[in-house]
């Protein structure tokens, strides 16, 4: 089979998919299988690495190489794999708890190092697998098993955090918009370096309707702000709303109320501006940007590793063990 002949089913495994019926993870899985079928990457060169959580079961359902590892450590494991094997296409999948709670440190370090791995965070704003505690992306006040009087943790804004951690690619999408999800997967793959994609994912059992403002038939038309590089940021029915910069803050206003020149033009290479955009929403409770926030170029970690290896080889020649063990000087006993 050549990569051109792949269909979605070539990426399905013989394992029964074990998410709750209605879970957003199904949609994302389908988007991924569809994307992979057309991506042109040989299946044997693809690896999915995950931690623990509902989302983290993802590798079992992708007919590629996979490692369902331990909670929070997937970015570190993927860093090792990608550094050892730059020829592979390495994807990391995990939930908001996996990535931002226990795994937060590995995430930010993978991003700053710009390891060529694609990190997909399925953000359902809840701990699904452990049956419903608040997560580091849950909104304040949330009533859960572990916060019967409401969560008092101020959540992360995953896009802001990734940008603050020197990420070279940051995007956001949502499970229900399969087309957009596919486009973000493609953009992440095409980016050379670490890519962080936040995927809003509905957990219909423990946090149903968390994204209703972005998925509700009516609301979504008002609240989805699609970012497109080089284009003015307008959204809403008939582009009635737009984003402008005022006093250093990205601000939403009526398109009609401002001149066309004042409307902010999205620039994927501008981290500062994209950071400002990330502050437009703190969770999906109103107008929320979706799309690629940042896509800029920096050498990947593994390419620099390889370069140093090649450099050492060029300078010193292939390693000679017999020489090495004599390198401190020797003497002979007769």
């Amino acid at each position: 089979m050549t990569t051109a002949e792949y269909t979605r089913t070539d990426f399905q495994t013989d394992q029964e998919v074990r998410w709750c019926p209605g879970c957003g993870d199904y949609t994302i899985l389908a988007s991924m299988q569809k994307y992979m079928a057309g991506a042109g990457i040989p299946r044997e060169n693809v690896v999915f690495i995950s931690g623990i959580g509902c989302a983290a079961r993802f590798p079992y359902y992708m007919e590629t190489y996979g490692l369902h590892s331990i909670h929070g450590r997937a970015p570190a494991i993927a860093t090792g794999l990608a550094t050892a094997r730059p020829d592979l296409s390495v994807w990391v999948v995990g939930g908001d708890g996996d990535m931002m709670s226990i795994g937060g440190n590995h995430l930010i370090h993978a991003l700053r190092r710009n390891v060529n791995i694609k990190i997909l965070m399925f953000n359902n704003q809840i701990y699904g697998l452990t049956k419903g505690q608040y997560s580091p992306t849950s909104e304040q006040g949330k009533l859960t098993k572990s916060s019967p009087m409401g969560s008092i943790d101020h959540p992360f804004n995953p896009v802001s955090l990734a940008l603050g951690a020197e990420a070279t690619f940051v995007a956001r999408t949502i499970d229900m918009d399969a087309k957009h999800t596919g486009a973000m997967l493609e953009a992440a793959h095409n980016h050379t370096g670490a890519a962080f994609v936040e995927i809003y994912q509905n957990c219909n059992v423990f946090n149903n309707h968390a994204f209703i403002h972005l998925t509700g038939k009516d609301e979504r038309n008002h609240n989805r702000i699609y970012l497109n590089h080089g284009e003015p940021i307008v959204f809403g029915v008939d582009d009635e709303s737009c984003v402008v910069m005022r006093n250093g803050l990205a601000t939403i206003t009526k398109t009609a109320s401002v001149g066309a020149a004042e409307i902010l033009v999205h620039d994927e290479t501008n981290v500062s501006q994209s950071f400002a955009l990330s502050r437009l929403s703190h969770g999906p409770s109103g107008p929320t940007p979706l799309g690629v926030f940042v896509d800029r170029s920096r050498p990947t970690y593994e390419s620099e590793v390889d370069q140093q290896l090649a450099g050492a080889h060029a300078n010193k020649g292939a390693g000679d063990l017999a020489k090495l063990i004599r390198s401190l000087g020797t003497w002979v006993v007769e």
Partner: protein
Amino acid sequence: MAEETATIDERKKLEKVVIRFAGDSGDGMQLAGNRFTDASAAFGNDLATFPSFPAEIRAPAGTLPGVSSFQVQIADFDILTAGDEPDVLVVMNPAALKANLADLQPMGTLVINTEAFEDRNLTKAGYESNPLTDGSLNGYKVIEVPMESLTKEAVKDSGVTGRDVLRSKNMFAVGLMAWLFHRPLEPTVEWITAKFGRNEAVKNANVSALKAGYNFGITTEATKTTPFEVAPAKMAPGEYTTISGNLALAWGLIAASQAAELPLFYASYPITPASDILHELARHKNFGVRTFQAEDEIAAVGAAIGASFGGHLAVTGTSGPGLALKSEAISLAFMAELPLVVVDVQRGGPSTGLPTKPEQSDLLFAMYGRHGESPLPIVAAASPSDAFASAIEAARLALKYMTPVILLSDNTVATGAEPWRLPDLSELPDMSVRFAEGPNSADGRFLPYVRDPETFARQWAVPGMRGLEHRLGGLEKEEVTGNVSYNPQNHQLMTDTRAWKVANIANDIPPLEVDSDDGAEILLLGWGSTYAVIRAACNRLRKDGHKLARAHLRHLNPFPPNLEGVLRSYEQILIPELNMGQLTRLLRAEFLVDAASIHKTAATPFKITEVENRVMEMLS
């Protein structure tokens, strides 16, 4: 040449001598010790070293916590430890004298940098009167040397100025010792030239100071003490180098990578005393070695697991606190049955403990330090040079049995040095890996938990191999398929299989060699860095006519297959350990043998006499 004026015959002939250089952290004592050691090695002596330095980068100058020392034992026969009490103590300041004098042999030789004994330094060291004058050194042979002014004088034409002037005084000390022990100056001059070649002034200053020290010895005729002589050791013929354990371990990993024909991936987070393995491996990128300095120990073991999944020889190294952090991930590698070497260079614990002090107190942790039933092979290095072979053995087991292996070293092994007879590299074990070659099920799929009938290792297929796509993970695996399984019988089967796989390694390791006298009543059994002291104690006791047996375990799990038999062959067993008796506990549990333990956790290696005395007690 002037160096020849003191003839060998006038010198004291010694079989062995222990010398300790002690001074302030800033005085360059480690360097002095190392130079002297190399000169002795080149001269053909056997030797063993023990560096000791403060945990602080640089504790306040002149204070007790700031004292740094380096001890070396040189001998004309096969020795093992850096020795107990020094015969010669070189002290650069009052604090060094205070911290070390108690260890000096009665009537030992004391070389003192007198100019450092002024009031401020005496106070800092806590002296109320000047030991040089208050009679407290009467029991020693004192060589007083105004080292600072002599050094200044010696280097005045070299071109160095300011601080650099006195920096060379450690070379003065090395020169003086070279005279005292009849070492050649050439190796040190060569070393100085290689090191400072580009800085002419510094080079000249160091060479001048070195020679000045030597000449001081000649000129003053050793301020009335007789110079010492240690003849070259009778060591096995061969080519030797002086090696520290950390370097030997690093090189062993490179050798394993070559023997296995797999690239080496070493992931680590810096930690004393393991960091030098990282530093050393980072220098050898032309061997295809990838080093990864991770954000923490969990990331380090994680990255190593990733590299292992990718088909590399994956190693992660650390010390006790880091091993604690790696525990959960090692358990994953155990469940996923991926090859991985985990190096633990033990140090004084618990918690941050005594980071620069020796201890062997992680054995039970290595054995039981994971949740659930997760037995791992454990290999321990017995000496600096043995770390080379131990590293190869750990890698061999990891790759052959598809399992994490714990490789124990410790501070003594890691930072100590000894002569190492270079191995014949053509005799490295065959470690070539057989990756899965294709689907292994009737329906053309690859089942990752199909096992080798002999080793019970599962098959290793790595990304990039077409048609062998599979998923691994930390949930219990179904036998053969590797699918997630909550089936009770399967869990039992897999627990048993994993345990059996490790236990079965006993059939693949050499039986324990016992160096036994006929009629020996007592077996001295050790592991790790107590090797040297146990052998030395044995040698001494045998010289006194005692009949003993001695054996040393490289494999702590599983034990060599003949161990039980060996244990049952002796009336008494003594196990010296730098912990509270951890191997002893393992042997009691395993074989119900009432082994005696001599143990200590006193931040120092055993003294030979400690072991000797205990054996004498048991014999009487």
